[in-house]
């Protein structure tokens, strides 16, 4: 019994000690002048290196703090905003509507004056489309004062990629990706006949389906009609939308879509494509880096999703990959802006692009990149993004559309049924906002 008692007393003692040491270890006042919160694991070492160079150059210390996974990062930023603990520089993940809320609440500094200084010197660093993602135009639906509110640090596009070796195996020209949707479906039949797996993508995480559906919506009905749908002027039951939804049925029936696609996460898709288990993938420009690490010998190339009609141009999603914002309540606003300007200068952008295989946001740094990546960069001409449209679709509607497409692919619902359901939710949300 005595032994027992002393053991527990020791535990109690340790516990009390721990509580008090917890109080002591509180003091952790950073001497660093600028704090940056980010979620980009793959860029962390490059950021650390750049912050070292910046300190050597200016004497200003920049501390990059990495918080992953991105979901948790996003929660942290929102919680920090509520507690008024936002760092000097941070990034916002989410839709443009969330971004606008941050601005309305005064958490984000408007950067337009800095961008326009010296004949818009800073502004001219960037691809216009990269900047557009962080821009609010005149008469935007969010009631935000027109201007630029974030600094893009890289760009991305989302396209199709195909495996050249498997193309040869299918008897196709490995240097000629399909040009039309009909051609794509034909290849689907060949894939099925050869018992291969066709298209892989992260369609279990819904936003990548949304992306492809939107690409084809732009191709079939044109940008204006898509925007009109979001504004509630055109219903989702419109024949053009049903045509968009039917494409997924066609793809499934032709044998183009890999088995298990509807619950696939993008990392699984990347793993399959990198190991030559799938002919096509629908993926963003970041995949170049992923494939390189998993299979350096992979022969593949990128191409725009093959168009259905010539009526309207094919549009893909692209623009700023990640952006940084300056806190509206930061005490170091000026220093923070200076640092971001330095970070987006050509040499630093080139370093970031080289170290992380991302596409730089600075126009001048785009020349020294690998060929596949250059293809992704070239596709910027066709790029658009929900964040530049000036209006946002309601999240429940996006979810219903994407989940509906999953149901179409598994043969559970028809395109008409899905369109009807999406429209019902759209009307419910519209009614609520009035």
């Amino acid at each position, binding site marked *: 019994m005595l032994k027992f*008692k002393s053991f527990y007393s020791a535990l109690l003692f340790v516990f009390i000690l*721990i509580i008090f040491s917890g109080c002591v270890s509180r003091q952790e006042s950073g001497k660093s002048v600028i704090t940056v919160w980010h979620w980009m694991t793959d860029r962390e070492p490059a950021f650390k290196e750049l912050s070292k160079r910046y300190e050597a150059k200016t004497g200003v210390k920049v501390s990059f703090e990495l918080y992953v996974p991105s979901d*948790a990062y996003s929660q942290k930023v929102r919680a920090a905003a509520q*507690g008024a603990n936002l760092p000097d520089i941070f990034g916002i993940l989410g839709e443009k509507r969330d971004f606008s809320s941050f601005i309305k609440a005064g958490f984000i500094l408007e950067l337009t004056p800095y961008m326009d200084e010296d004949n818009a010197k800073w502004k001219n660093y960037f691809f216009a489309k990269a900047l557009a993602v962080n821009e609010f135009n005149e008469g935007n639906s969010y009631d935000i004062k027109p201007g630029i509110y974030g600094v893009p640090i890289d760009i991305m596009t989302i396209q199709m990629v195909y495996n050249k070796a498997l193309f040869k195996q299918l008897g196709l020209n490995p240097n000629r990706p399909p040009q039309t949707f009909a051609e794509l479906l034909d290849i689907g039949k060949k894939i099925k006949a050869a018992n291969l797996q066709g298209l892989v993508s992260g369609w279990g995480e819904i936003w990548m389906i949304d992306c492809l559906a939107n690409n084809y919506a732009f191709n079939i009905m044109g940008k204006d009609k898509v925007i009109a749908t979001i504004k509630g002027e055109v219903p989702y039951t419109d024949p053009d939308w049903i045509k968009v939804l039917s494409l997924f049925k066609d793809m499934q029936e032709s044998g183009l879509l890999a088995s298990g696609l509807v619950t696939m996460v993008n990392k699984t898709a990347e*793993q399959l494509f*990198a*190991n030559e288990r799938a002919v096509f993938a629908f993926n963003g420009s970041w995949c170049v*880096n992923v494939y390189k*690490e998993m299979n350096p010998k992979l022969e593949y190339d990128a191409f725009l999703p093959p168009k259905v009609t010539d009526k309207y141009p094919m549009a893909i999603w692209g623009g700023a990959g990640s952006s940084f914002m300056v806190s509206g309540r930061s005490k170091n606003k000026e220093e923070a802006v200076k640092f971001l300007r330095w970070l987006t200068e050509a040499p630093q952008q080139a370093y970031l692009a080289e170290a992380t295989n991302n596409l730089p946001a600075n126009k001048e740094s785009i020349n020294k990149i690998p060929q596949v990546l250059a293809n992704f960069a070239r596709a910027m001409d066709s790029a658009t993004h929900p964040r530049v449209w000036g209006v946002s679709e309601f999240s429940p509607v996006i979810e219903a559309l994407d989940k509906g497409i999953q149901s179409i692919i598994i043969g559970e619902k028809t395109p008409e049924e899905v369109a009807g359901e999406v429209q019902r939710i759209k009307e419910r949300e519209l009614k609520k906002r009035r």
Partner: protein
Amino acid sequence: MKSGLYYKTKKVTLNLIIHLLLLTVATTCILPLLWMISSSLKTQETIFKDMSIIPRVFHFENYYQAWIEGGFGRYFLNSIFYTVAVVIGIVFISSMAAYAFSRLRFPGRNVLFFIFMAAMMIPLQGSFVALYVLLNKLHLRNTALGYILCMINVGLSTSIFLLKTFFDKMPKELEDAARIDGCSKIGIWWHVALPLAKPVLAVVVILNALNVWNEFILALLIFDSRPLMPLQVALMTFQGEFVTRYPLLMAGLTIAALPIIILYLLMQKYIIKGVTQGAVVG
């Protein structure tokens, strides 16, 4: 009359069936562990190409790399510190409360117990922002103490429930004897009830240790400074938004699983031995 041979065959067959069942289940449990360990010895290139359990080339350096790159040294100590602190806190606080709920009478006892039980039911996800704001006001955000108290709170309800169930089952005679000997209530709890509850305490320890050890969302939310972060946060850095470095992740996960397995090995002795002791006394 059935012969001895009949019984013997029956027993052998029964044992055979039992062993077959146990072995099947055991195999499904071991394979993922083996897969994890074998994957931790491969490279990013071979991990999904070479599906064999025994890798062709053993890349032990993955462990070294994971340890160094993840900054495991610091985080490992942090995690052990948080786990020990939270588990000790929970064991004391919840066993006291559970003992009171099981043995002592006071007004509001049932209501209080019901509130604790109800707390198990409501998922915490929605309350993170509220918790953040609260910790901020109490100046406990970005402190080890704040994290420890939050995690104690997380494990409290379930632990009280577990302990109360077992306290209810335990014989009262020993406590009565101790009371007659003039032992105080605290003394009885300390000298009689707790030793008897060793097996369920072991379960509480394992349950909460695993819980704290694997937690990272709350840690990420309330800690700004990396030196305070627990081990899981380091593991997360191997799963980037776009690139997951699988071999390093698997090496890290293997390292992270070890302390919990060791703890389980230590504790399960109490579960088995402790219970038989308790039964003899009862």
